[in-house]
């Protein structure tokens, strides 16, 4: 075909990829249920304004959403294919579940964001949201839960921790107003080196320490202590964020989980207000999350603290080893094409399926799979190697098929 029929950036998931995807999903679902989370699903269409409300998604991200006027758009009110699931989950909570107490939700759903060229524009996320007062144990729980999912999949995760309060405190100390802070923070995240120079000029007393905070990463508790001694005198507002991080790091290190600290890490999401983290496997970012205490009130709900994370299901599935389908599919061979033969073939297939086997009715058997035929009162089983066995009952056929699947 000279021109693909698929839309650009959209992927088909073939059976083999789907099997890997399901493994990720099942590991995630099992882990979430083990930690007491319940599954939800949110609609694919949401109002655009839910996402443009200040403090939710950054303009860079909003510049990549799929927004349009739908059939109801007569007032000019746009809708959007959800570019993120945390904001819809927060909306769901504010609209229907906001009755106090801790709410623990998880979901497996897709998000849509424009990406250049042939990069994927639809991504599947396994996400959890922990809504209600859960600091500090919730911050630790999310990281442990994420690592547990990855461990189930046989993947070793590296944890990278951050806290948006660190950079915000420095920017406020530099005498920048809110809008200048946001603009400069965007530039720091974009890796714009002149932003660091500009900041250094505004905070000469911090000098080279800024380099340590914004352009470096460090190892766990030790690096946190270094930040504390370099900054808390000059930037007292950093003390709170450093304390929050120290608790999380202390707990994780106590459980034998090492983590990197990276102050300038959170991209494109403005709703994080506290500790944030990323999970990496062999250098691939496979997920991340953090605390977003202001989000629910920003979209019109009560002031409720919350945190959450999402794993990139597609990235994880691609990291798993390919595996062949384990299921043996037996074929009930069709002897003739009249109604009576069809009925007897489907009756046999149905009886075998009731025994927990996968069975199809076909004229042609699948390559390398066993075939069952009706022969008078009994049955003939043609094994994968071609040998024939005469069997008297459906139960005996089922037993023989199970044996063949084990070989």
């Amino acid at each position, binding site marked *: 075909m000279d021109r693909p029929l698929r839309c650009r950036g959209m992927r088909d998931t073939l059976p083999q990829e789907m099997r890997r995807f399901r493994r990720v999903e099942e590991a995630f679902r099992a882990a979430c249920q083990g930690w007491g989370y319940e599954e939800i699903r949110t609609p694919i269409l949401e109002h655009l304004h839910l996402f443009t409300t200040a403090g939710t998604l950054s303009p860079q991200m909003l510049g990549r959403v799929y927004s349009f*006027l739908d*059939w109801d758009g*007569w007032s000019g009110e746009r809708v959007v294919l959800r570019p993120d699931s945390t904001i819809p989950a927060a909306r769901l909570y504010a609209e229907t579940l906001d009755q106090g107490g801790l709410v623990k939700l998880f979901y497996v759903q897709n998000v849509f964001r424009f990406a250049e060229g042939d990069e994927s524009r639809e991504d599947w996320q396994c996400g959890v949201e922990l809504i209600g007062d859960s600091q500090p144990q919730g911050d630790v729980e999310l990281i442990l839960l994420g690592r547990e999912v990855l461990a189930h999949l046989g993947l070793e995760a590296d944890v990278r921790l951050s806290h948006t309060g660190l950079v915000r405190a420095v920017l406020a100390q530099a005498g920048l107003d809110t809008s*200048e802070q946001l603009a400069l923070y965007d530039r720091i995240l974009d890796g714009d080196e002149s932003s660091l120079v500009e900041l250094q000029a505004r905070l000469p007393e911090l000098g080279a320490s800024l380099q340590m905070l914004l352009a470096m990463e460090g190892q766990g508790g030790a690096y946190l202590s270094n930040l504390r001694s370099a900054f808390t005198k000059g930037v007292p507002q950093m003390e709170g964020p450093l304390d929050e991080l120290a608790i999380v790091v202390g707990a994780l290190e106590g459980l034998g989980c090492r983590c990197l600290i990276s102050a300038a890490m959170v991209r494109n999401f403005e709703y994080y207000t506290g500790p944030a983290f990323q999970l990496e496997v062999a250098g691939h970012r496979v997920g991340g999350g953090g605390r977003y205490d202001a989000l629910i009130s920003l979209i019109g709900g009560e002031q409720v603290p919350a945190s959450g994370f999402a794993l990139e299901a597609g990235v994880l599935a691609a990291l798993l080893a390919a595996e062949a389908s384990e299921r043996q599919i037996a074929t009930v061979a069709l002897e003739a094409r009249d109604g009576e033969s069809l009925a007897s073939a489907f009756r046999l297939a149905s009886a075998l399926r009731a025994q927990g086997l996968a069975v199809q009715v076909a004229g042609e058997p699948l390559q390398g799979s066993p075939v069952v035929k009706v022969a008078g009162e009994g049955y003939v089983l043609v094994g994968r190697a071609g040998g024939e066995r005469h069997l008297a009952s459906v139960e005996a056929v089922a037993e023989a098929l199970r044996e063949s699947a084990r070989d």
Partner: protein
Amino acid sequence: MNPPAIKLALPAGDLRGPAARALDSAGLKVEGYGEGSRSYVLSIAGRASVAARVFREKDIPIQIALGNYDLGVCGLAWVEELRARFPQHPVVLLGNLGVGRSGLYVAVADGAPGLGSLGGRRGLRIASEYPNIAEAFALATRLPAYRVQAVWGAAEAYPPEDADLAVIAAADEAAVSAHGLSPLFCLLEGSAWLIANAEGLARKDLSPLLGPLTGGAGRVEAPSLRLPPPLPPTAGRAGVSPPPRRGDMLRMALPDGHQQRHAVAALRDAGLLPPEGYGESESVRRPQSPIPGLEMKVIRPHDMPQLVATGEMDLAVAGRDCLTEHLSRFPSSPVQELLDLGRGQFNLAAVVSEEVPASDLGDALEHWRGQGRQVVRVASEFPGIADAYARGQHLGRYQVIPIAGASEGFVPEDAELLIEGTETGRTLAENRLKLIDSLFRSTTCLIAGKGREQSGRRRRVFDQVVAALRSAAEAARSV
């Protein structure tokens, strides 16, 4: 005959004169362009390899991006409007022609507070002919829950009643003020540029035009869109809410452009013609009201259904074409036709090139398929109607090209099919087009919102206006 090697897109409208003079002084005489010839396809004296075509300025960057035209002349604002939504478009800015200087401004009604006060305000309405730029502005300033009203024109007339902000093109700040608005922020300043399709530039010899047009001055850096930084939420929200609508005034929209003379006639017959500001040869945005309790505003007919749907306007005199377009896109809209004023009649029709050997759509489709065309391109100022028609007629794989005007020139090179208004068929014949299907008859009508509760004086004025227009329309029909 070989197709001309180089295709040049030239602007109609205000930029036509200045662009013609700029081309002229570069030694390129486009026959009939400066004089405003009715023909859309023009040639350049002494350059047989070049074919020029006249478009609405807005459509030029799109035609260049599509690769239908190699070179074009248009204002920077329309290039930025394309870039704001489609950053990867293949349009290259080649040279400043130095004519048609204009700026793009964010403006509010006179006396409204400045840019800083907008921070954190929910639900701001921004009217603009440049909706993508307006959207970029709202995102950059992080306005929460804003609404961009994409309009066909007259955005400067929207604040304060029908929008909180307008993003408009104007020569300078004084020109913004002349509309009764205060400029808050200048997004862009520039003039008309020569633009090119990147691929054409890389593969095609365009020198017969590039030489004369880019020769003179050295390359100047093209100005680009400036966006303000994020606006922090203002502390108190008091004093910044939009001016409350005057509760007991009935608001009515009147059309400018082609519809104007029909609306004037209908209003005159009904005894509702504004004593000043709206007539055959005059039009101001806010004409004097003929009766107490009624407020009139002159805007583009295309934009009326939305304003009626959202309740900003109570009544509007609009063409059925615009109402049908709105309802084709938004079937749940609460706008309806209240009264057929029976004037300004024309047919909305499916139109093809004279050369298509077919008398109906089925034969035309067969002809295009026979030529190996896989996608049928449908150009229209009414993309909603065109889309509904294409679906309903089983066009198969088709592409609707929304255009701003000058539609007759699109067939046959840039579209197979036009969905187009035709009154007498003369313009069709002049442009070597023919009608193959009629969609519906459009006339001037009165539109209003469904199920709107009105009471008190507003109700009385509403009934009075509708009754006067109805009896005048009936009288006109019985003549």
